[in-house]
């Protein structure tokens, strides 16, 4: 009887050791996950980026309060004129802008960069509270002057700029390759 008890005790100890390590692993994984989630929290700079983009477009298409007519004649020249990397505004790009000129309530001129889905996504993002993966947009406007067939007009220039850039973690190997 004594030997059976001893055997059970030894078996119980082993079981306890396995259970103990299982608990340790669960606690360890929990702590590691918690720390990683905390330190990997995203710092959202998309609204700031959209604001910077909007200001940049304003400053290069409005000179002395006059809207630059060259933009109307050749919209694609805006990338070079404003010093923008056009690749990021097309295809898999993450930036967007739209320029609208209003004569009173009437739309006088409107043109945008390629990624037109941004506009709808931005509208959804502004209406929904939880739309983390939708782009962030900034709309700003100011009054500008414009010569239309030698007639001086006062128009309202509206710039909608958006960003949906999420940075990414890269490995050292990936960096070395680049």
């Amino acid at each position, binding site marked *: 009887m004594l030997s059976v008890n001893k055997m059970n005790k030894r078996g119980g100890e082993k079981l306890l050791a396995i259970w103990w390590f299982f608990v340790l692993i669960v606690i*360890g994984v929990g702590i590691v996950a918690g720390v990683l989630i905390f330190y990997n929290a995203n710092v959202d700079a998309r609204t700031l980026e959209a604001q910077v983009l909007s200001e940049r477009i304003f400053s290069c298409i409005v000179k002395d309060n006059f809207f630059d007519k060259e933009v109307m004649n050749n919209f694609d020249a805006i990338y070079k004129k404003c*010093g923008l990397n056009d690749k990021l505004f097309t295809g898999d790009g993450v930036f967007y802008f739209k320029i609208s000129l209003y004569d009173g309530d009437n739309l006088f001129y409107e043109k945008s960069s390629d990624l037109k889905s941004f506009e709808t996504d931005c509208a959804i993002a502004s209406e929904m509270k939880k739309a983390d993966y939708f782009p962030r947009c900034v709309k700003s406007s100011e009054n500008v002057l414009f010569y239309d067939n030698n007639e001086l007009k006062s128009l309202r220039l509206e710039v909608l700029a958006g960003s949906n850039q999420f940075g990414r973690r890269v490995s050292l190997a990936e960096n070395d390759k680049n």
Partner: protein
Amino acid sequence: MNKRGEMIGLETLLFFLLNLAFMVVLMIFILNSSYGALVYEQTYAKQIVLLIDGAKTNTDLGIDMTNAIEVARKYISTNKAETSDEILKRAIIIDKEKGTITVSLSGRGGYSYKYFSGYDVNLETAGVILKINVREKENA
């Protein structure tokens, strides 16, 4: 009796050592994380990119990288004599073709962020200051 006593002693020792190893690994991980390299990498990358995007052509900007250097020293600087410039040159990488800034303070990868500026951007170091030079592209 002695053999059995030795076995129990060995098992206890192994049990103790495994527990100790677990605690040490966990503490090292938490200590490394507490330096905040992941957070600094992300915030510096975004800060540098925002400065580049907001800069007009022919602009020189400077950003104080003291915190980044301190964190990088804890991770990647094995050579005590390594200067701040050397650390910064290794930690801040610019890819002009893709238009990305990568900040790597931990030496185990880093955080990459794109800038939309189409200007020619160059990075220089002066002590703890990272200088950002924004110029018109020569072939533009």
